């Protein structure tokens, strides 16, 4: 690894985020210029800028050095940036004494950047708007990706921008809309921004204040799940709930498709096999849940509640409007299963991604057919095209590592917290897939505040690994990464 270059790029990214923090600072200042929040944000911004200036002075990197960036460096930059950003982003919450320990602040920030939405705050409504705004803004930044934002805004990193883009963008293959990564990154952020603006407008039409509309838009478009209310979206009208359902659905599908649709090619949606699978999956689950809940929920809105919970969990958002813990066990179990799947590639959603799961299923089916017809040549098709063996291998190994991490996480968590198995299982998958609420002690109406310090670090690790699609974080723990 080229440590100097990696550190200097991480520092540059840190600078971007320090600059973005001026927005919540502004909000806190507008509310009350003398509040501790203003002081906390100022300190954080100062610390962030100082740290990001350090490599400039100490390392003296030349422009040409960036050409040496390789795939390993790209992964390391992304992994390290996310950790450093979360460490910095946790400062405001910690400095204002909003949470008892730094671990809590770190957990909350990681949960924000990774768009998980698992919270340690027991009474959200008691916090100031500056802090809540920053909390939701971490969602929005992490949703489309901080590195992608950096690539879109700042001067190009030479020829190697793709290494970084690939390491952060979710999905099987990182696609380019435009030949130049910078343009691709710009388009993605533009589509993201437009959809966010649209949702904010629609939420305000439903009677939300600008502040709440923005916070909930960030939570929805990034498939995050932080709310400004204790009752989450359940505190708002059915109209707002439907708006959020629609935008969660959009956020969980591939943004490249949205771009093509904006360019006038609406058929892009039906042409994409992943989108069709995603759509059918949601449709089937919503119908099933509605039928199953027909007799459970009194007072109407069955379809809305079923649709909200299904879409929220599948897209890995984690907003809730009903306590699904109290639903029949089969439905809870189905939701946990769905947690593994997550959104589409190229979306802001987490999980294993729809395409990976369906490809893995097709490979499994193929192996069964192969057992019957040993000499048959059976290609695995996706989007009408046969898949390369290399991609199949990547998908399968991703699948295996994911399941492996899930079990390790569950076992460690159960060991650390001495909790019941349902809580342990759902905590591991709800963080690994960046969802937020699970079952049992971390159910829809509960939170993560009770978990011990080591437990919170474990879950923070799972959240980061899940958001960055495993490799960026896992390589930081492998010794060859740190060798020259």
């Amino acid at each position, binding site marked *: 690894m080229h440590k100097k270059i990696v550190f200097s790029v991480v520092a540059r990214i840190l600078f971007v985020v320090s600059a973005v923090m001026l927005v919540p600072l502004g909000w806190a200042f507008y509310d009350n210029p003398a509040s501790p929040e203003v002081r906390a944000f100022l300190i954080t911004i100062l610390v962030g800028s100082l740290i990001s200036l350090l490599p400039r002075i100490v390392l003296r990197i030349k422009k040409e050095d960036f050409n040496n960036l390789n795939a390993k460096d790209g992964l390391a930059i992304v992994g390290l940036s996310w950790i450093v950003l979360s460490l910095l982003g946790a400062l405001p919450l910690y400095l204002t004494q909003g949470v008892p320990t730094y671990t809590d602040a770190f957990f909350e920030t990681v949960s924000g950047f990774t768009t998980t939405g698992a919270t340690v705050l027991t009474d959200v409504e008691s916090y100031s708007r500056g802090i809540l705004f920053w909390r939701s803004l971490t969602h929005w930044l992490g949703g489309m990706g901080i590195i992608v934002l950096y690539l879109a805004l700042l001067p190009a990193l030479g020829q190697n921008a793709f290494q970084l883009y690939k390491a952060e963008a979710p999905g099987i293959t990182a696609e380019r809309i*435009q*030949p130049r990564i*910078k343009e691709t990154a710009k388009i993605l952020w533009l589509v993201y921004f437009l959809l966010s603006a649209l949702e904010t407008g629609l939420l305000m039409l439903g009677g939300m204040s600008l502040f709440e509309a923005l916070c909930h838009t960030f939570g929805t478009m990034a498939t995050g799940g932080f709310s400004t209310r204790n009752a989450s979206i359940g505190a708002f009208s059915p109209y707002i709930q439907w708006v959020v359902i629609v935008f969660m659905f959009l956020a969980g599908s591939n943004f490249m498709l949205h771009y093509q649709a904006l360019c006038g090619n609406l058929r892009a949606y039906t042409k994409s096999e992943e989108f069709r699978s995603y759509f059918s999956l949601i449709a089937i689950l919503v119908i099933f849940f509605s039928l199953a809940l027909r007799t459970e929920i009194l007072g109407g809105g069955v379809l809305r509640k079923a649709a909200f919970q299904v879409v929220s969990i599948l897209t890995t958002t984690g907003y809730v409007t009903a306590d699904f813990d109290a639903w029949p066990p089969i439905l809870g179990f189905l939701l946990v299963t769905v947690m593994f799947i997550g959104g589409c590639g190229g979306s802001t959603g987490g999980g294993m991604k729809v395409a990976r799961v369906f490809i893995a299923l097709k490979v499994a089916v193929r192996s069964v057919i192969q057992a019957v017809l040993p000499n048959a040549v059976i290609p695995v098709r996706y989007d009408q095209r046969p898949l390369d063996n290399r991609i199949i291998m990547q998908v399968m190994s991703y699948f295996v590592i994911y399941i492996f991490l899930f079990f390790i996480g569950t076992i460690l968590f159960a060991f650390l917290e001495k909790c019941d198995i349902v809580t342990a299982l759902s905590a591991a998958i709800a963080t690994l897939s960046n969802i937020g609420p699970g079952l049992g002690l971390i159910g829809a109406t509960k939170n993560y505040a009770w978990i011990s310090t080591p437990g919170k670090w474990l879950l923070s690790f799972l959240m980061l690994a899940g958001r960055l699609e495993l490799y960026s974080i896992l390589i930081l723990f492998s010794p060859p990464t740190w060798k020259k």
Partner: protein
Amino acid sequence: MKIIIVGAGIIGWNLADSLSRENHEVYLIELNPDVAARVDEKIDAKVIVGRGSDPDVLQQAGVHDADLVIAVTNADEINLVVCFLSARFGAKRRIARVRSESLLQAVKSFRDQQFAIEEFINPEEVAAHDIIRVVKTPGAREVADFAEGRILLRSFNLPASSTFCGHRMDDLRTEDFPWPFLIVAIIRDGEVIIPTGATVLEASDRIYALLPKDSLGEFLTFIDPDTRQMRKVIICGATHIGEIVARELSETINDIVLIEEDGDLAEQFAGRLNSVRVIKGSAAESAILKEAGIEAADAFIASTPNDHSNLVSAVLAKKMGAKTTIITTQQPDYLSIIDAMDINVVINPRLRAVDQILRLVRGKGIRSVINLLDCDCEALEFVPEENSAVTRAPLKELSFPKNSIVGAILRDKDVFLANGNTQIRSGERVVVFCQDKSVKKMQDLFTRKKIF
């Protein structure tokens, strides 16, 4: 500009790399998925896996609104088809690599109607002409021609015996000298010096000089009084390059020997060129070299397709007495190693082709670009546009970028060397010498400002 490159070989790769750095929108079509995956990682361009001659693949790259299509696969036929198809689909300009001489002639004879190709690139031919220029200019380190060979750029290491040594530049610049020349740059201890009148030339300086074609013979005797035209040349490899070189040199040089390992190739070659003596055997064997008469050789040219054998045979030839050694290489990675070895001139046909194509792409007033190897300098040939800045006043009243020099001007078939009073007119051919970083500024001087 939207550019589609077909074929990610050494030419395609380097082109894509340079062009994407220059902020062009680059699509690269490559058949081999492994190569494509590597390109995807290393170059900021969109890679499409597929055959360039497949209309679907071309359309996937958005050929209909491409500004330029560059077909540089190994196969001439595919390159022609790519250009033909992309012209039909609406690509604005097309460049093709065509190696086969006869195919090139045929295609050129009906170019507009059939294949609609603007420019042809033949790396082997470009390299062969480089070699011929070196052979015809003994002692030269680098050679480049401008204005169809009427203006020459040559670089030499001054030997201690040179008449130039110890002279001020003023002494050398006499207006009425019948064989004019202009020293545009000196490299001394690795530093580039743009000479003024007071600069004194020293032995072992590397000088770059611009001169009209007719001055060359006299100029060479100034450089080194002992110099003489080459009389014996040994060429290794009956390749396309070897054949062009042998054929052209045989017009002026009587003693040319060609060494070829493959019996069939050697026989075919001997059949085509009867003025050349052909020896069958490996040039990496001293017995074969001795048989070719290596002690008396003025130049040894190794241009087989195999870089390793070129290198080995050139080093051996030098050891055994060849005065100048010239090799061609396929693999650009070797250039830095070769620098450290005792080989006089190295030519990489593919990189030369890349240079040529880049020149066509950059366009805008520039006719020709030569990247000089040892200093970060370029020699450029401009055709000043009507009413461009450079045509409005004599040179001394214009402000040029630092360390640049306007050298020679071709005006109605006559070559002039520029001085402060020279007034450049539009449509002339002007050769300038400047640092890499000032190319853009130079270009602005020679082109009309666009007003939107």
